[in-house]
């Protein structure tokens, strides 16, 4: 397991992220991991004096996850990326590209997500 990683609920996400900002952490990035069981692990990485602190939020694929870009503006790019590549439903992103930051209209949604979302999309296309 990675060091300094804390499991939190999505309800606590904003509180912990706000707390990190107050305590002088910079936002490094977020990582979305499709666990293949209908849930995502979303890891938020913060840094202070080159030491990482990580929050892990487990969300169901159909659930909404609030954006942290109102606290850390720089999160907007990775949140758009997770939204497009995994189909993670991140809400209220500071600049929301509506699924077209990386992907064009012709491409399948959620190409990084595990099989089931891709299959559903293909069925939908037909």
């Amino acid at each position, binding site marked *: *397991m*990675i060091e300094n990683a804390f499991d939190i609920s999505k309800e606590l996400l904003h509180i912990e992220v706000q707390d990190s*900002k107050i305590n002088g952490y*910079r*936002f*490094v*990035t977020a*990582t*979305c*991991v*499709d666990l293949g069981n209908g849930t995502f692990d979303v*890891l938020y*990485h913060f840094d202070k004096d*080159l030491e*990482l602190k*990580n929050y892990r939020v487990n969300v169901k694929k159909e659930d909404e996850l609030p954006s942290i870009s109102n606290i*850390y*503006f*720089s999160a*907007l*790019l*990775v949140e758009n990326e997770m939204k497009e590549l995994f189909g993670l439903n991140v809400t209220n992103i500071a*600049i929301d590209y509506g699924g*077209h*930051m*990386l*992907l*064009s209209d012709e491409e399948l949604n959620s*190409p*990084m997500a595990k099989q089931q979302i891709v299959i559903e999309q293909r069925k939908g296309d037909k």
Partner: protein
Amino acid sequence: MGNTVIPFGPQHPVLPEPLHLKLVMEDEVIVEAIPAIGYVHRGLEKLTEVKEFTQNVFIVERICGICSMMHAQAYCQGVETLMNLQIPDRAKYLRVIWAELHRLHSHLLWLGLLADAFGFESLFMQVWRNREKVMDIMEETAGGRVIISVNAIGGTRRDMSPEALRKVAVIVDEIKEDMMQLEKVFMADYTVKHRLVGVGVLDSAIAYELGAVGPMARASGIKQDFRTTGYAAYGELDFEPIVETDGDSYARTMVRLREVYQSVDLIKQAIEKIPDGEISVPVKGMPNGEVISRVEQPRGEVLYYLKANGTKNLDRLRIRTPTFANIPTLLKMLPGSQLADVPVLILTIDPCISCTER
């Protein structure tokens, strides 16, 4: 009169790679900048899930030509941590030498592109003439000029002979001497200073809040360089992060210029101290678990997150590249700037779009 929207890129003489910006203008002043990327997205993170963990070294090297060696280094360090592998000391020093050669050619490439961006073609030519010497060293020591493919899980694939190391030390000294001549132009030329001083000021607090990394952060007074944590052989070398405080385009140029000399110094220190011995250890078994590996690339810190499951395939490989971290700074620097300064401002973050999109 309403605002005008000017599309900048994805094809533009100043952009080596495709980045598109929608610039909302009020006369000649930028009010808002919205980036659009996605032109060179190749889905490399997804590809690493279907290739074997040993093959991934070659994939991550192809994320970017300019810092390919350090992508492989970050990946290999991550897998080595997962597999509890202790690589030989000689391999650690070799990684430092090749990594600093990469930083050297990356910064020289950037300094040349900057000169080109403000129309100083002869300066561009002189800087790139020096960069060619680094490319020649790469070819001679690794067989490739761009993707040198020297990293392997467990150490390095190639060694350098004592003669080659001596030659590298001589050539990097020549580069330093040449750059000290050119430095006068970057530091004191009226036209160069006019295009850089006070342009795109990013103060320390905003740079930190936006998560700026590398020379972008250090030019704004943030003393942050991941090499100081001592990975590879950096812990045995003597150096301090290069920091400037003005936070403008001139400060960012000075940081990269001084880091050229720093890389020369680090290469020479590593050559002096490199121990004899093996260059790799055998790799047995499969990686399992999660790890985060970080390395200081020329553009700043790169982060690799690896999740392995005890098989030959990884569950997830996530890469946060330095340009990805520095784009938000661009969105804060551009509003309020003149349209004519956009090329220089984009260049000062040293954008690597291939890295950003993977």
